[in-house]
């Protein structure tokens, strides 16, 4: 009886010990920091921090979004190598696979949080981010999304930032560029009104067109499952618009664009984010020529940093970078700026630094982070020319 009691006590204290051991590993980096580990001296380019700053990245390296995750991983590793060469501040990057699965992503986030990562980059998909980011917010660990574009990501909390432009940021710039290029006076707007994504794209288009003083002669709606748009297009044609403005997913975009050309609408077609896909060019072929769509990044951008980035990336990985790679690379540049601003790799200091990001030159151009913790930078307005997206000028 007493022996049993004793072993229970012993077991209990062992458990306590184990718990204590766990809890000591978690705050270890910050304990180090107090000893001058993660907080350095000097500021900006002069900043020098003794310890390596741990960065955790959760990307979809397997599963449905695997093709995006691998280029994000490549670009982030390249960015860390480049930044470590500069000196003063060094980063140690850990990339984990979220397997395009929110459950696994939460585990990865938990791991980063308890291992003391100063900031978490990712995850790849917005859907996943909606589940993982509250975990980081709860633990007061900053997160920088480098590919999430859905609404409601940064609203999760004040530790959540992103450098990927949302559709709301891209559309006004697309409209402004198209208005200037084609002297648009009146347009017909078409959108599928049974999809949240295209509906919000429509709202952004309507606001931007009003801002630019363009008359909308007709607003036509359709269903995302529709494939025959001739009746709508004939109606659109009657008011002989200067352009068609369309918010649709690529499944509808392909038949809509081909049928518009078929019935003889030659006006430019301005599309939302759904049009920003090689599938449009592949699907619509020649009919896609002249389609205008905004994007956060384009390989043809003449930004000096971007040209150098493409060259270095292609040389290192034997494939050309895509938008996911560029946004991941820029993400690391932004983190570096935030770290150097306060010369500290502490979570709170990085969070404060990210909030102050203004006109930081990156591969995406000059990036600022606004009061909603969303990125602002110049979008690239593209036009389909000879089977690829070229820059509208």
């Amino acid at each position, binding site marked *: 009886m007493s022996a049993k009691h004793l072993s229970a006590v012993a077991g209990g204290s062992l458990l306590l010990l184990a718990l204590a051991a766990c809890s000591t590993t978690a705050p270890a980096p910050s304990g180090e920091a107090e000893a001058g580990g993660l907080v350095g001296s000097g500021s900006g380019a002069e900043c020098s921090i003794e310890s390596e700053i741990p960065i955790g990245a959760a990307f979809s390296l397997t599963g449905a979004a695997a093709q995006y995750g691998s280029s994000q991983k490549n670009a982030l590793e390249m960015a860390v190598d480049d930044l470590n060469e500069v000196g003063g501040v060094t980063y140690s990057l850990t990339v984990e696979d979220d397997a395009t699965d929110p459950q696994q992503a939460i585990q990865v986030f938990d791991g980063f949080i308890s291992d003391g990562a100063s900031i978490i980059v990712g995850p790849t998909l917005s859907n996943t981010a909606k589940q993982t980011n509250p975990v980081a917010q709860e633990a007061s660990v900053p997160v920088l999304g480098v590919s999430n574009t859905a609404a409601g990501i940064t609203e999760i909390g004040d530790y959540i930032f992103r450098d990927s432009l949302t559709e709301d940021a891209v559309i006004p710039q697309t409209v402004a560029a198209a208005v200037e290029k084609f002297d648009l006076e009146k347009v017909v707007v078409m959108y599928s*009104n049974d999809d949240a994504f295209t509906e919000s794209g429509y709202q952004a288009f309507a606001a931007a067109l009003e801002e630019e003083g363009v008359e909308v002669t007709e607003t*036509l*709606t*359709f*269903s995302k*499952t*529709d*494939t*025959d*748009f*001739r*009746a*709508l297009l*004939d*109606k659109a044609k009657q008011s002989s618009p200067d352009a068609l403005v369309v918010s649709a997913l*690529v*499944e509808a975009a*392909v*038949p809509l664009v*081909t*049928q518009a050309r*078929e*019935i*003889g609408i030659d006006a430019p077609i301005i599309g939302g984010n759904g049009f920003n896909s090689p*599938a449009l060019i592949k*699907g*619509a*072929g*020649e009919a896609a020529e002249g389609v205008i769509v905004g994007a956060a990044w384009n390989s043809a951008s003449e930004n000096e940093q971007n040209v150098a980035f493409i060259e270095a990336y292609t040389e290192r990985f034997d494939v050309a970078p895509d938008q996911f790679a560029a946004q991941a690379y820029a993400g690391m540049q932004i983190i570096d700026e935030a770290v150097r601003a306060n010369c500290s790799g502490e979570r709170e200091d990085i969070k404060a630094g990210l909030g102050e990001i203004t006109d930081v030159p990156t591969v995406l151009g000059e990036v600022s982070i606004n009061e909603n913790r969303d990125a602002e930078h110049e979008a690239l307005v593209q036009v389909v020319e000879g089977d690829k997206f070229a820059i509208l000028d």
Partner: protein
Amino acid sequence: MQLFVDGIFLGSIYALFAIGFTLVFGILDRLNLAHAAVFSAGALVGIEVVTRFGLSIWVAIPIVFALGALLGVLIERIAFRPLAGRHDAHFAGLISSIALGAIILSVLQALYGADTRRFPAEAFPSTRLEFLGATFSLLQLMILVISVTLMVVLTWVVAKSKLGRGMRTIAENPHAAAVLGLNVGRISSMTFAISSALGAVAGVLFTLNVNAANLGIGHAVELKALAVIILGGLGSLPGALIGGLILGLAEVYAVNTVGSSWRDMVAFGLLFLVLIIRPQGIFGARKVREV
């Protein structure tokens, strides 16, 4: 005039789908909900045959027709025949055909992925025609002609041929048909084969017409086709054609007069209106059962 022409051509697509559908639904009295999957299969396999093997569309269509017929036989054998003896065979078959349709779609997804695909631009001549100030494509005209021809030929088959008489006998009373020496299984198979072959070819024509095919196109048209069948009158092939044209016209005029957001409401509202005035549908005959 352009509106009228747009409506007629849109309607002829619905009719094309509905004619194959109603052959089984209206005459054998079985609702085959795998028809939408056959439609998608026809479109995607047609695209594959034309793009991968570089065959002309005129060779692809007979291939797709044969594939559709094969699928039809499989659907009848797998989803309907094993259940024929059950007292709830109508509903059981309806459910099992949904399941079989889902299986067909999964196979298609595994083969071709979920992306939107299309026929190469040069697969069909993009000739435009003009008639009384309205323009349309050669393909649209062809679809209308095919729909009308099919309606006429199939009406004749059902009414006059030996096969058609068999179909009608089976629908009325399968046991009596067997007693009379009719090969019930063979006639059911034939009907499903014709129906599905037409459905698969409709998928090809539809895809050529709108320039896009994906797994979901069948389902998008299925509901409209069901409405067309009810509107035209169950089991009536001319009804399926006229019903299709009416729905097409209603949709186009709804878009242009009431507004595009109201399209489905106006079109389906009209359907109810017709059914209130004429519950058996435009061409439907009220079935009188004598005891």
